[in-house]
């Protein structure tokens, strides 16, 4: 079936099998490998992308369901001049990662979280990221990064 999806602001048209998962589509058809397949069971959140601005798990969605929608992956988050998105900058400054496997999903889940709750408490951040697992046990700095990004946004 033919689908048309805006990926990181660029219009993409592909003929896909209906069973193609969104994460497969992004990695294989669009060659955007920043989005990771972790658990493949919608538990770990490594595959998180934004669909029409909201966080979703791209391993548990068919590409066909995103037809006509707008997807943002980690590759599409930074500004066109190469400067980092405030959430990426905060992860960088607070060292919110170790191995980096969960990072793309963490950052996008956090962007969506702040969009819905611009002034979260630490508890809000921890609950808000419950769908994203970090196996380096790096949650402390991730939470610090999200709170720093929220504060930076507030200061603007």
């Amino acid at each position, binding site marked *: 079936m033919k689908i048309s999806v805006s990926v990181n602001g660029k219009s993409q048209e592909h003929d896909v099998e*209906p069973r193609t998962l969104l994460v497969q589509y992004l990695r294989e058809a669009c060659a955007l490998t920043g989005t990771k397949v972790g658990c493949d069971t*919608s538990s770990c959140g490594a595959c998180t992308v934004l669909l029409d601005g909201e966080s979703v*798990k791209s391993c*548990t969605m068919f590409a066909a369901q995103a037809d006509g929608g707008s997807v943002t992956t980690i590759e599409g988050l930074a500004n066109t001049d190469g400067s980092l998105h405030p959430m990426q900058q905060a992860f960088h400054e607070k060292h919110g990662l170790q191995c980096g496997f969960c990072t793309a999903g963490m950052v996008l889940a956090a962007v*969506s979280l702040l969009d819905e709750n611009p002034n979260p408490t630490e508890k809000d951040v921890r*609950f808000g990221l419950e*769908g994203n697992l970090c196996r380096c046990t790096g949650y402390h700095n991730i939470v610090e990064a999200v709170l720093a990004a929220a504060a930076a946004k507030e200061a603007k």
Partner: protein
Amino acid sequence: MIPAAFDFVRAESAAEAVAALAEHGDDAKILAGGMSLIPLMKLRLATPMVLIDVARIRDLSYIKDAGDHIAIGSLTRHRDVEISELLKAECGVVSAVTAQVGDNQVRHRGTIGGSVAHGDPASDLPATLLALDATFVVTGKSGHREIAATDFFEGFLETALGSEELLTEIRVPKAGPSGFNYQKFNRRAQDWAIVGAVAVTVGGAKKVGLVNMGSTPLRARQVEAALAGGASNSDAAQSAAADTEANQDLNASVEYREHLSRVLVRRALEAATV
């Protein structure tokens, strides 16, 4: 993990979805948010030949004041239920329990109707809607029919929904600013409830729903009867496991689940009295 191949049909209206169900019969499954169905398909525990995508039927996504009840369109996403001011004011338990379904990403996709139609006894919402004596409206070729929540859940992942019917609306009573509480017991964030207990007061009567204590969501009828007869919360909660048929699995034995049900029902009742 890639699902078995299927044909993809997009329905733009409830009538189109019902017509597609009639055409494809048992070979077809309705796809709403896909948060229950897609994992089953990836594990090939479900291998429908045809998926009928209903997620774009906009007029089945709403939360309305319908006089004596609140009407929720079956395709209303969990996120929209969670933040609905109308539900928070009139039937707050539905919003509060929905906020504990899955995680943010799941609640951005999953729908209340999908959760009900899937009929999982370990799900948070079916037991809550059962406790509320909700009514489900289903649409078929010959029109609408209403099914009481007490008649809807028939067995493990089996409901009274006909193979050519689409769940279109969930009706919940106006409980007003009554006390409610949901106790979800799990070992890790985002896990299914090992056992859950929901307590809510509707029209002065306390209702209690049980999650994951049998092959269907359950009501703790004996607890409700004891409370109506004047028993204290802790005394009434002692009969929480009566008439249940809990399973044993890696997380819990039958005895442990029964113990949890008594403790969680007591906690839910105590917290709901505030």
